[in-house]
């Protein structure tokens, strides 16, 4: 494996991309569309390739230590780890939200039932007669 430094064009392209990406993300965080933890994770997706072009020798050594043939494999590996952390977080949040939606739906239904039962115009049976034939 021989070391090849990235060209100036590659470095500039990556840094401009990361700069724009970071500005957009920080703006979303300031507007409270994403929280700080998500901001950090999403910024990492941009910062990892930036680190690879800014510190090419370090990444070359890291790739050598990790036993991978090319530094970009290490980059993909690092990005995959970040993506899976984000995915885990999204799945966990989704499960919590699902539980909350179920609990809220049940509460709404029970409150509505109580309200209907107490309303004089309700078509529902008197709860004291539950289970009995009204005829």
């Amino acid at each position, binding site marked *: 494996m021989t070391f090849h430094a990235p060209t100036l064009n590659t470095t500039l392209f990556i840094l401009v991309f990361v700069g724009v990406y970071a500005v957009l993300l920080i703006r979303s965080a300031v507007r409270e569309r994403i929280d700080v933890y998500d901001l950090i994770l999403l910024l990492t997706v941009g910062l990892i390739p930036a680190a690879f072009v800014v510190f090419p020798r370090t990444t070359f050594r890291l790739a050598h230590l990790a036993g991978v043939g090319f530094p970009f494999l290490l980059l993909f590996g690092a990005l995959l780890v970040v993506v899976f952390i984000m995915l885990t977080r999204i799945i966990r949040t989704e499960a919590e939200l*699902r539980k909350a*939606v*179920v609990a809220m*739906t*049940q509460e*709404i*239904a*029970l409150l*509505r*039932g109580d309200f209907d*039962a107490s309303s004089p115009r309700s*078509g*529902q*049976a008197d*709860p*004291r007669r*539950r*289970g*009995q*034939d*009204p005829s």
Partner: protein
Amino acid sequence: MTPAEGSLLVVIPCRNEAAGIESLLGEISAELPDASVVVVDDGSTDDTADRAAPRARVVRLPLNLGIGGAVQTGLRVAARDGYAFCVQVDGDGQHPPSEVRRLLSRREETDANIVIGSRFSREPGFRSSAARRLGIRIISAWLRLLFSVNITDPTSGLRLFDRRAIELFERRYPHDFPEPISIALAVQHALRVQETTVTMRPRSHGRSSIAGWNRAGYMIRVLGSLTLIRLGGRRPS
């Protein structure tokens, strides 16, 4: 009004059961005249709730939560209104209300917290397909292996809960595949689970959601969930 000691709430989870709900409620009022009834309408698009309303208390879920969410809603009613017992009778007509007495008798004999109506061991009546029976046997064996509990029909929805079980499941009831998983949760919380043989009928209409490739997914998820609960160890009730 606080329900009396020994009071029974019949919970009927149903979705689009307008065709059979009135006859089911009529049967319940004939067989269990002292029981209260709550119909949990799980987001029906037909007039199930309207047909049930003159004969029973109806809780209308604005969204379809699935069988687990619907049963848990009924258990919440039982917990809040102080019922001593709660029995689940499915709205599709598979569970004859006359069989509820068997569950109550079994509860008296064994003092169990949960009594499940098993469609096996008794010759007459509906027994489900061979594929389903195989799946039930595998789940039953898995429950016996992991939790040392002998239940021949862990997917049966006809079941009686006492106050301790009501209080547990009101807080925590599995939303996916609740029948077998709730048995594991009950054992995990040191509740006693028993079963008794009952006769079931074929569903009067509709069809099971567990068919075709869904069966494989169902088995993988149920067996996986049971294993995870076992790994969680026993918890104080």
